[in-house]
């Protein structure tokens, strides 16, 4: 335990004093701040419309003010935080010869990797809580809306999902930093995987869906084929943690969403009608809807960390 605590403390100190963390934190804080500010301004101008909304506070996070909402932004660039925090966590120590020194101290070897992972998770947690609190404060001051109990719960769940999501990327980059001896290689591998899973999986999903269940738009559309096409596309794109995460968080942040995605095809008038008279989903039901997503994200994170743990424990460390 003493070893784990020592490593944890050292890594946490390193994170908070390193320039790259400060720069990244400044960037993310700035962008989320601006996006929420835009959302807030937008809400202030349209106070009429707000009278109908039950949860105006959550709109600070989910409304696309300028270009994207705060939730979308974290889904996109959250992985970068995880990658930057850990892409060189093990191989830098190996290159500088400090790893052998660490493991020749009377600690269990797993204290090194556990301490590093936990310090990363702690950093992410502090960072996200800080950002959410700043935005909440901004909402209070700018729009003058106070969060209700349910909104606080929803934000809390959002925070937990986000922590796991970014921790997944932390675990991925730790895994790469263990398996690649070269720091540049591990950084590139993490970023390549990030780009692949975030951008190309949804593209690939379209290709796979269209080849398995082609929808001919010229001819009379076959509803069965269209639904099959959409189902396949959804299934494939769920391989991407980003899709998992954004569906989960958007459902929890926006109580008006009843499913993670609507398979049901509706015309514009029907949609308008149904949205005018529908009530928000209760918190428990929202959680039920996204429960599979949450489980998948947690499992992905744990599996990834478990793999790196095993590799690190059996690896021969000579330098």
């Amino acid at each position, binding site marked *: 335990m003493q070893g784990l605590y*020592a490593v944890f403390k050292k890594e946490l100190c390193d994170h908070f004093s390193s320039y790259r963390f400060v720069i990244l934190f400044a960037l993310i804080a700035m962008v989320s701040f601006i996006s929420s500010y835009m959302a807030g301004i937008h809400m202030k101008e349209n106070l009429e419309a707000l009278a109908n909304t039950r949860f105006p506070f959550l709109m600070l996070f989910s409304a696309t003010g300028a270009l994207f909402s705060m939730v979308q932004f974290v889904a996109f660039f959250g992985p970068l935080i995880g990658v930057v925090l850990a892409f060189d966590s093990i191989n830098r120590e190996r290159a500088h010869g*400090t790893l*052998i020194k660490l493991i020749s101290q009377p600690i269990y070897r797993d204290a090194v990797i556990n301490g590093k992972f936990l310090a990363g998770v702690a950093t992410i947690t502090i960072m996200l809580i800080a950002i959410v609190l700043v935005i909440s404060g901004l909402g209070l001051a700018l729009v003058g809306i106070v969060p209700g109990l349910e909104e606080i719960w929803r934000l809390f769940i959002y925070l937990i999902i986000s922590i796991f999501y970014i921790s997944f990327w932390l675990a991925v980059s730790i895994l790469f930093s263990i398996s690649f001896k070269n720091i540049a290689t591990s950084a590139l591998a993490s970023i390549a995987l990030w780009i692949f899973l975030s951008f190309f999986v949804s593209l690939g999903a379209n290709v796979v869906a269209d080849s398995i269940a082609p929808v001919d738009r010229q001819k009379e559309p076959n509803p069965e084929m269209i639904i099959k096409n959409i189902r396949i596309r959804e299934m494939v794109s769920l391989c991407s943690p980003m899709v998992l995460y954004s569906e989960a968080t958007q459902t929890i942040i926006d109580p008006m969403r009843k499913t993670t995605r609507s398979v049901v095809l509706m015309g514009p008038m029907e949609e308008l009608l149904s949205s005018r008279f529908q009530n928000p989903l209760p918190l428990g039901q929202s959680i039920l809807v996204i429960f599979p997503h949450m489980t998948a994200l947690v499992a992905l994170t744990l599996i990834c960390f478990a793999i790196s743990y095993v590799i690190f424990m059996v690896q021969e460390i000579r330098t």
Partner: protein
Amino acid sequence: MEASTIIETVNLTKLYNRQTAVKDLSFKVNEGEVFGFLGPNGAGKTTTLLMLMGLSHPSAGSAKVCGFDPLRSAREVKRIAGYLPENVGFYGDLDAVQNLNYVARLNGIQTNRASEKIDELLDLVGLKQDARKKVGAFSRGMKQRLGFAEVLIKDPKLIFLDEPTTGLDPDGALRLMEFIKSLNRDRQITVLLSSHNLYQVQKISHRVGIMIHGEMVAEGTIESLAKEKLGVGEKEYSLEEIYMKYFQEA
């Protein structure tokens, strides 16, 4: 002088991808002695040291360090034995005290006791005035001395030194050897010293072992090896002659 055995290996073997790095190594180190561990590059000295520290798993055979098996009780071995690798690494963006503090915490030393100890050790290795300098700016010799401070922080009974004099100037190497001798004399620390600096090793070692191609070809006091290899009655001998003789035979 009859001393108790602190390190004992029995047929210690290590294979890397079917290549033998260490082959049936059996030797003993007595408590309180300086054991010179000699051999050409790639003879398996570092591998042996790693196995004794419990950092590398032997393919066959067994070892005992202070009565503990490094394979099963690695933590106990690491608590009493210090290891100074050839290229000792530090966190370059931390200063000397912070580096030592981290190691002290990993060893579970209380904070107030640790700072006392760090002061004392920095004084001992002559880095007192550089205590608050970033280690990234240290010279090779300073790093080597800081490495010694780091190894000594856990009050080891036994230290493994892997080529401690490589890259040091002649004067620095000489003073380092004197320092190792003083550690052995004043603090009763057993030293297992691997080095190519035969002249220095001869001056401070009680016994030596010569390892070639993963095998220990000779083990004993320098006099006994001299008798064996260079003939009895020879007064003027050097470890270098003995070493070269073994090396040519192998």
